């Protein structure tokens, strides 16, 4: 199976040991959310995958270990969108083409890709606008699209969705599904974990829990102890379960209402 694997990753930043032999596997076509308390290394994972930090351990893409000689594979397969300031003065259209700079494509292919995302994300009216004139939400939207246009196998988002409209988030997820791009979504907003199949919980320099999102969320007490809340409908399902009104986790409002008031 195609996969992206972090194996026995250890990393120290300054005086702080961030990860102690952390291992994670992200299978292709399985979207994953990563949550963790502040300082648990969520952004560090992004920076490692972006090639920004040196680490001990290995990264494997489809079984091939990434080293200095084939580091380009990491850039090719994994797109990373960091949650840092994005205040470019360039036009949207220029930014989209700039996203393809490292892809070594001919102009026709570049144009084809740009046209495709412009149509899908309905960017026609803003192509000639400057990034710096946008709201934070819009800037992050463009920043993700700029990464998606490269067509990498995985996209890693460093708590980006929290800055965006839900409609835009849904559109990005649906584009990734259509284009077979696997999402690794690092998030501090629990509602977004429901958008992915798997959940990874980081704690104390390593992985505290990993598995299907709904199964992990059922570990309500553990999650609360680690400082997380539950998505509204999951919380409602579990609490109403204690009252004997619901016997499973329901994540759709209408289905929930029908289940309560039969």
């Amino acid at each position, binding site marked *: 199976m195609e996969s992206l694997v972090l194996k026995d990753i250890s990393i120290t*930043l*300054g005086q*702080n040991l961030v990860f102690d032999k952390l291992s994670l596997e992200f299978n292709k076509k399985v979207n994953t959310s990563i*949550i963790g*308390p*502040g*300082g648990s290394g*969520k*952004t560090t994972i992004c920076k490692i995958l972006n090639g920004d930090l040196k680490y001990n351990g290995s990264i494997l893409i489809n079984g091939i270990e990434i080293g200095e000689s084939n580091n380009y594979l990491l850039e090719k397969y994994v797109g990373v969108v960091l*949650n*840092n*300031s994005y205040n470019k003065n360039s036009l949207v259209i220029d930014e989209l083409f700039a996203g393809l700079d490292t892809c070594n494509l001919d102009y026709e292919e570049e144009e084809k890709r740009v046209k495709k995302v412009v149509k899908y994300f309905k960017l026609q009216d803003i192509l000639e606008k400057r990034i710096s*004139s*946008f*709201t*934070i*939400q819009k800037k992050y939207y463009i920043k993700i699209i700029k990464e998606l246009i490269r067509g990498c196998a995985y996209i890693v988002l460093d*708590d980006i969705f*929290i*800055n965006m*409209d*839900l409609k835009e988030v849904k559109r990005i997820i649906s584009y990734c599904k259509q284009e077979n791009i696997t999402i690794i979504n690092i998030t*501090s907003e*629990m*509602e977004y974990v429901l958008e992915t199949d798997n959940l990874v919980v980081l704690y104390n320099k390593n992985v505290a829990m990993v598995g299907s999102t709904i199964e992990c969320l059922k570990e309500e007490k553990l999650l609360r102890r680690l*400082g*997380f*809340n539950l998505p*509204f*409908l999951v*919380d*409602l399902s579990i*609490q*109403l379960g204690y*009252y004997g*009104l619901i016997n499973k986790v329901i994540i759709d*409002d*209408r289905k*929930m*209402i029908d289940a*309560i*008031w039969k």
Partner: protein
Amino acid sequence: MEIILQDIVCNSTKADKCLNKVNYTFKENSINFCSGLSGRLLRDLLTLKKQRESGYIFVNPNGRLSDIGYVGNNPLKEFTCKTVAEQMLYFKDNYHLKYNNVQEKIKSALLMVGLDESYLSRVITSLSTSELKKVSLACVLFYNPQVLIVDYFEKGLNYKDIEYFKKLFKKLKIKYNRNIIICSDNISNYLDILDEYVIFNNGVLEVKGTNKELYNNVIYKYIEEPHIIKFINLVRKKKGVELDNYIDIKELIKAIYRDVENK
């Protein structure tokens, strides 16, 4: 400290940085939720970093520059020094603070945000997003402003941290009579602590109200509707069940149980 905006006009290409003849009062000793208006713009207007096109701002009682505290969504932008301790001392010099025991003040500011003194020697660029936000707030609390403006502060913080800071904001309001202005697009996190809300769109004040008026649908034309409010409205519409205007999931659960049991 009361802040009165009277016929304020500010021009900008950014929707959240313009104001079009706005009249609004941020009452003293209250927690205001404010959406569609940049907290940075508000800070800059109050500290005269930005000049308005027209209109008046009244601050009552009159204050000093250090009475306005600001914590942004990207705290790295606000830091000018290498370490946390250096940053705090920078504020001390910048605002001419005359503290008898500076070290104690620094430690207590860190303690208020849940950090210990080991953070004093930490290099700012080595801090995680949530640590940066906490340190940024500690720096502001160190110079003890009358008004605290927090801009998208909750972004990147987890539930436990957000709850911690909500308690802190409440304490600052109740115990120390501070004004807290929360600028954000996510009202869900603040339903239980806000006193008043005001929503702007393209520089126009569209809707304002108190914590008793959170079920006003007009608000949610401009910002995302909290899931609990959306759910209760849907229950009313779909099943005709008249649940009260709850903002606490525990109260909602009890009400659902009572309703189903009674039937």
